[in-house]
């Protein structure tokens, strides 16, 4: 479930904050199978490997093992969430009921005895069933899962060749992730992801960061969300509340209208993408750490407040990230989230708002004696204030889900530092992104998902800031970050139900995704050349 954009190390391909580093230069293939046949081969190897594992798995396999529920319970357009999926997340990934116990430190025994005592007291116990085998004795399985996306990327026009990739039609296995997903104790659970990526940062180019401490460390930590969650009563209203520690603003959000878990869920790591993105749109994914509290009151009102801080320069490489990837915050950046989700019959309608405000010290770009960038930032700060409005409508039919989502993010940039140090032409900029998405997921057992999205980024033009963009190459001088286009995807999930042979040990999501650019990085001039066809198999064990 990784957002491919920051899987590519320094510069997340979907959009770059500072575009000073050329993406292709940092590509390094992990293993590339030259032809289409290769894709089939690798898919079959991996599937054979997993089937051999015996029982079957799915959703985040460790969740399936923990809950015993098929994919369809929590996911509509996988990994998009159903209301129950959201409740599972809000309950801190701790609820279970499946064949396997994944909790590290279960307080299971005394809880079960408490239930039994309660039952004896109230039930009168005339027909108390024989004390059979209690649930704690089922096999303990470490809540470890892994996932790999084997993707074939074809762009309409050839991209500039960058070893080890061919200009076009590459087959890449990226990212490859390992997860810890499940309950740690009865009240605390985690969703932690570590990703191996073939687009490692570092290299010989001048101005690049000296990778010396971990020359080819291509492992990096990815979405992490560790939660304490509990339920309680506020007056006569039920409340699910908890505290979440995470490293990516909106990764902890239950709805898929927020950037961290927004569509497209999987994209090609080597395909081109619009450079500009708002701060909350994944720019600081994995570069920050935050702790916050949330509450979901009466299954209706969701409130959350989290404070984020950027990690310091030294720890970032240890976590496999290029410290120059995102500029440090001045102090705590508050993130807030408010949402209301009326639910009637089989309909769920959510609408809400979220936002973040951060003061950022941009890097000066100075290099040391042998040309490697050093940790130096401007004294002034750029003030980014994001405010976003989102809405989602979900309808559950007998064996299908219909989902519509809309997200509008408005970013207000006060670029005091960048403007005064010649990094941007205007003192203030705005950047808005709009996403409108719809999907139809059919079939409880094996599921077919048709989804489509319109995306648009529009912002004020800034010749200095957006100098590298297509719209700033003469004769075009508009230098604006505007791009828009469509993404369509058809996905098929064969082993979605518990009757499947491989459930709950492994699953695969085969998808064909086509991205069509109407306008790319400010111009529609050969924007079509970036249209990408991405056929991928998403394997999860």
């Amino acid at each position: 479930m990784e957002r491919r954009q920051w899987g590519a190390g320094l510069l997340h391909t979907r959009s770059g904050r500072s575009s000073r580093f050329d993406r292709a230069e940092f590509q390094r293939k992990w293993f590339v199978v030259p032809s289409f046949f290769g894709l089939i081969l690798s898919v079959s190897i991996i599937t054979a490997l997993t089937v051999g594992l015996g029982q079957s798995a799915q959703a985040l396999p460790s969740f399936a093992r923990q809950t015993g529920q098929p994919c369809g319970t929590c996911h509509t357009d996988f990994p998009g969430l159903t209301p129950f999926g959201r409740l599972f997340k809000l309950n801190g990934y701790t609820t279970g009921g499946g064949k396997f116990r994944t909790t590290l430190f279960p307080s299971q025994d005394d809880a079960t005895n408490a239930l039994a005592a309660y039952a004896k007291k109230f039930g009168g116990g005339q027909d108390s069933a024989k004390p059979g085998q209690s649930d704690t004795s089922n096999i303990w399985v470490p809540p470890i899962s892994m996932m790999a996306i084997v993707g074939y990327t074809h762009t309409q026009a050839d991209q500039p060749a960058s070893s080890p990739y061919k200009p076009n039609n590459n087959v890449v296995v990226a990212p490859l992730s390992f997860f810890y997903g499940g309950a740690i104790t009865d009240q605390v659970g985690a969703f932690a992801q570590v990703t191996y990526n073939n687009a490692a940062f570092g290299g010989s180019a001048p101005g690049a960061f000296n990778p010396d401490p971990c020359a080819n460390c291509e492992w990096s930590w990815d979405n992490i969300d560790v939660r304490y969650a509990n339920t309680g009563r506020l007056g006569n209203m039920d409340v699910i509340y908890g505290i979440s520690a995470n490293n990516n603003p909106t990764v902890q959000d239950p709805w898929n209208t927020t950037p961290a878990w927004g569509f497209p869920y999987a994209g090609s790591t080597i395909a081109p993408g619009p450079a500009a993105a708002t701060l909350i749109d994944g720019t600081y994914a994995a570069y920050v750490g935050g702790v916050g509290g949330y509450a979901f009151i009466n299954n209706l009102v969701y409130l959350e407040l989290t404070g984020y801080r950027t990690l310091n320069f030294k720890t970032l490489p240890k976590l496999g990230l290029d410290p120059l990837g995102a500029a440090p915050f001045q102090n705590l950046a508050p993130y807030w989230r408010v949402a209301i989700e009326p639910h009637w019959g089989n309909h769920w309608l959510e609408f809400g708002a979220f936002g973040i405000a951060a003061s950022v010290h941009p890097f000066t770009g100075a290099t040391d004696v042998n040309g490697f960038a050093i940790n130096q930032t401007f004294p002034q700060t750029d003030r980014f204030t994001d405010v976003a409005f989102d809405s989602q409508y979900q309808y559950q039919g007998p064996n299908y889900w219909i989902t519509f989502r809309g997200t509008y993010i408005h970013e207000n940039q006060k670029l005091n530092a960048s403007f005064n140090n010649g990094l941007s032409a205007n003192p203030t900029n705005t950047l808005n992104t709009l996403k409108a998405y719809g999907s139809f997921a059919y079939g409880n057992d094996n599921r077919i998902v048709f989804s489509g999205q319109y995306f648009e980024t529009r912002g004020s033009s800034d010749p200095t800031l957006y100098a590298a963009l297509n719209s700033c190459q003469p004769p075009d001088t508009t230098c604006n970050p505007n791009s828009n286009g469509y993404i369509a995807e058809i996905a098929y999930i064969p082993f979605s139900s518990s009757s499947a042979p491989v459930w709950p040990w492994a699953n695969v999501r085969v998808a064909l995704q086509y991205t069509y650019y109407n306008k790319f990085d400010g111009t529609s001039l050969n924007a079509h050349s970036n249209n990408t066809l991405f056929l991928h198999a998403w394997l999860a064990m």
Partner: protein
Amino acid sequence: MSVICSETFQRSFEVKGVKARIMKLTRSRLAILVISFAAVFPRAGHAESLAIRNCTWCHGVSAQGYNPAPGLAGQRREYIQSQLRNFSEHTRDNPFSQLYMWGATANLSPATAHDLAIYFSTLPPQAADDGYRALEEKGKAIYQLGMPDANTAACVVCHGPNAEGVGEIPRLGGLAYTYLKRRLEQWGQGYHATAKPPMPGIASKLSVEQIEALASYLSFVK
């Protein structure tokens, strides 16, 4: 809780001219946040066993139901037990039963099922109140007196005057309109056919309007 968006958040502090205190406040806010949450929401008052939370995950924190999951609070103990058995034996084969409950009960030990049944049966039920008021009267007539000319038996005879059920016969009072409607329709479609008579027979005689009226009436029964 007013919608705090970052600009107003920013301006309100500057307006009060307490810029210096922002730093201290923001750093301490985290602390306030943590304490306030833990204090405000008292625990549910009894050992919240994980087995219970496996159910309240979907059936609602106080098991009042969260469609498509029906309310469990106040349901008859023997009914919960027999349905859990039906789920694990796959005899209750309605679509959502298959999707959600077969997996949920695959590893449920009889002892836990028995204790859970008692626990939920002791919770006070709240009416879902989500039916159509206009149909309530018609539904009540069908429930209390049945429809002799349509040969439809009166539900009150088995389910009781306040639809509280008895023994293995379920409580219907207060359940959600959509759930009741779906279940009644599915009886007619032949799901859960191996259930003991008379339900399959009775429900299959009900027309759509009668089902909607019944479901509406029952959703308001306290």
